[in-house]
């Protein structure tokens, strides 16, 4: 194994996003704070409680999930795409790094960014709603699995993409709608029948609810469903990303 090579690629990927903290850390923090301010604070004063939990505390797990998903995806997607665009992907492809090592370093750095952003968001939210977490280790495990899955999806998208517009396709047209319709701001049991059906057909809903269970100790569907979705997403996306990288598609002639 090329241990130094993996550490170097991981370190380069970490430094890349830490070098632009305004864009990578501060921006999601501000967005989340705004969500929190608008939906949690202003609406929360009217909604009071959802499923017996103060509304601001109810929406926090979903917002953290949104932050982790978006940032882990964007890190690997934007990094690999910029490397393709600038031609520096050649530097990695001619090196003795194996496919698994390349993918592992990209995904690990993207997971780190997702967890860092998610952690900051949780800290800010917890200042208003309290720091209690019912199952901290399971919450971490779930988020790492989700981040790894979306990091692999980001890697895949950047491999395929020919433009920034295509890189942004998944977060804009898939992740954001699914997250908004995934019970971040509402409980499926309270929703009208059509929205309830739509919500329960949405895999992100189970991720949000599993994190809600991990943090609050209660959720609508059984949390095992969310853990199963996270595991399937992580394993499936990583395997497909590995197979695509190994095939050389769009990267090696």
């Amino acid at each position, binding site marked *: 194994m090329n241990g130094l090579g993996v550490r170097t690629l991981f370190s380069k990927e970490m430094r890349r996003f830490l070098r632009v903290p305004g864009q990578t850390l501060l921006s999601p923090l501000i967005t989340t704070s705004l969500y929190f301010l608008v939906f949690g604070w202003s609406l929360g004063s009217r909604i009071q409680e959802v499923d017996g939990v103060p509304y601001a505390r109810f929406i926090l797990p979903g917002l953290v999930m949104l932050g982790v998903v978006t940032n882990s995806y964007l890190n690997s997607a934007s990094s690999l795409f910029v490397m393709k665009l600038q031609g520096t992907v050649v530097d990695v492809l001619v090196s*003795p790094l194996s496919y698994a090592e390349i993918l592992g370093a990209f995904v690990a750095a993207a997971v780190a960014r997702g967890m860092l952003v998610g952690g900051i968001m949780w800290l800010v939210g917890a200042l208003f709603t309290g720091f209690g977490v019912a199952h901290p280790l399971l919450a971490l495990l779930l988020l790492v699995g989700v981040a790894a899955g979306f990091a692999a999806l980001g890697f895949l998208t950047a491999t395929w993409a020919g433009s920034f517009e295509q890189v942004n396709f998944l977060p804009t047209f898939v992740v954001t709608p699914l997250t908004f319709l995934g019970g971040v701001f509402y409980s499926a049991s309270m929703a009208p029948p059509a929205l309830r059906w739509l919500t329960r057909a949405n895999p992100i809903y189970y991720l949000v609810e599993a994190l809600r269970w991990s943090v609050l100790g209660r959720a609508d569907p059984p949390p095992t469903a969310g853990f199963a979705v996270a595991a399937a997403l992580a394993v499936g996306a990583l395997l497909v990303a590995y197979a695509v990288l190994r095939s050389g598609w769009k990267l090696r002639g």
Partner: protein
Amino acid sequence: MTGPVVRLRGLSKLYGDFTALDRVDLDVADGEILALLGPNGAGKTTLISIVAGLTRASAGEATVLGRDVVRDYRFTRRAVGLVPQEVNFDPFFTVEEALHFQAGYFGVRLSPARLEEILEALDLAGKRHANTRSLSGGMKRRLLIGKALVHEPRVLFLDEPTAGVDVRLRQQLWAYVRRLRARGTTIVLTTHYLEEAEELADRVAVIDRGRILLVEGKDRLMERQGGKTLRISLGAPIAVLPDGLARLGARLEEDGSAIDVDAPPGGSFGPALAAVATAGLPVGDVETRRARLEDVFVSILGSEGGAAP
């Protein structure tokens, strides 16, 4: 190392219906500079990309130091340095960081002494902390060479290293390539600048339409394919070539103001000069011109029905 450093056998690359490489056989000897010469689209970049691991061959075998570039990629890639044709840079990092990262990918810790040596040799010491985005085009190209050398490869592939580079930088790069060779690095150079191959190469491989047309020592190639030509400029034009010169194959040029005579390989111009004296021609000037690689190249491609360079 007694065998070739790079050995290609039956190497082919197809892109759909297009044949980029067609059953190429080629050996690169230890410590030599081999110029891979051909027009645009001849297959030069495809060939070196396969050896460096950027492209996969459709058929055939490529080995570096006796090891297969696919099966033993970790070994062969550590032995190969590639300077790609397209200038690349990572706008997030400095020159020094870029070199450290590249060494790390190869599992090598870049020592301060080695870093200093590379920066000095490529005239980048003053820019070590500069963001790579701020470098001039020439500096970016030198940084590419630095990145290809961080792991001290046995064989260095330079893909059109001086394309779009000014004369001064070109001379600097050539001097550096010679120094690398003197230290034992084997160098494969792709270029369509014939002057570059003539200046640097020990051997020349001419490639066109994916096929290697010829591989030969540069001096021998020029000796064999292109002899010397003697040009005698006359003080006054003549209408008819004297018999003595016509028998030597001389030609009237410049509307009778000059006579060109080709020397036979290994032969001299003595008989031609004697014939001029015998004919009593008014000689203004005499010069000899050695065929340049460009002439040889054009004649090889021409005889194969290939494209112009």
